[in-house]
């Protein structure tokens, strides 16, 4: 039993990653848009789990808050607005979907072919750390939020401010786009 739990703990990233893939496949395969949104939610929660497994705790929690709390609810509202009054139950997939799936599968096969040795070959003796002196000093695992905030508010302050302007523009734009004509 202990061995089992230890194995799960070591492979946490793989478990969450495979579940995220399952959620994504459910998302693009579901017939109704509501089921699609639920698959999206499942994928997002599992990607948050992947973030946690990669020791990005702050981002994992932020992912759950932003996606499960905000974006999925927004999607559900629009699905209710748009899909419920749908009269015609048409074809779900595009005409060219067969070629599209073939093209994407070809791309996946090419990628896996290129990375075959790196993925399925013998594992490298030590994990790759590009700048070990930084990893030692920063200690990302213990002070994740502090490290992220230093990056966000000290090193990348300008992109952060630009993002706030983008959010303001998106807010105004969304209101202008979605408002009714007669107001």
């Amino acid at each position: 039993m202990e061995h089992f739990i230890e194995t799960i703990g070591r492979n946490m990233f793989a478990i969450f990653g495979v579940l995220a893939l399952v959620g994504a496949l459910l998302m693009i395969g579901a017939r109704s848009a509501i089921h699609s949104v639920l698959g999206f939610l499942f994928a997002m929660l599992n990607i948050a789990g992947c973030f946690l497994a990669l020791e990005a705790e702050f981002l994992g929690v932020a992912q759950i808050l932003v996606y499960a709390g905000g974006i999925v609810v927004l999607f559900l509202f629009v699905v209710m607005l748009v899909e419920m009054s749908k009269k015609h139950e048409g074809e779900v997939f595009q005409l060219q979907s067969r070629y599209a799936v073939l093209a994407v599968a070809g791309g996946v096969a090419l990628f896996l072919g290129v990375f075959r040795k790196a993925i399925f070959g013998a594992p490298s003796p030590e994990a790759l750390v590009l700048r070990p002196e930084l990893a030692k000093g920063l200690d990302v695992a213990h002070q994740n939020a502090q490290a992220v905030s230093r990056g966000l508010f000290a090193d990348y302050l300008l992109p952060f401010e630009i993002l706030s302007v983008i959010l303001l523009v998106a807010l105004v734009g969304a209101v202008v786009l979605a408002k009714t004509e007669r107001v």
Partner: protein
Amino acid sequence: MVSLNAVLVISFLLFSIGIAGVLIRRNALIILMCVELMLNAANLNFIAFARHSGSASGQAFALLVMGFAAAEVAVGLALVVALYRRRDTVQVDDINLLKG
């Protein structure tokens, strides 16, 4: 420590599923969700490289990407609602105003 290759493979597969969804679905809402999925795959790469390079810059940028994705989804959904008001459909095949 999670190996970098595992993260790259998972993220690549998520991105491919997103591309496949954009290409094969007719519903504009689901296409938007697939775009979100692709942004998340990019985020996963950012975080993996941040983890393996030992600096938190990648995580800061992933947070910026998350905010950008929120802005994008707000504008995209507003567009879908406006489109539905005007054309009474969200199927992208029925929207061919620019077709000659």
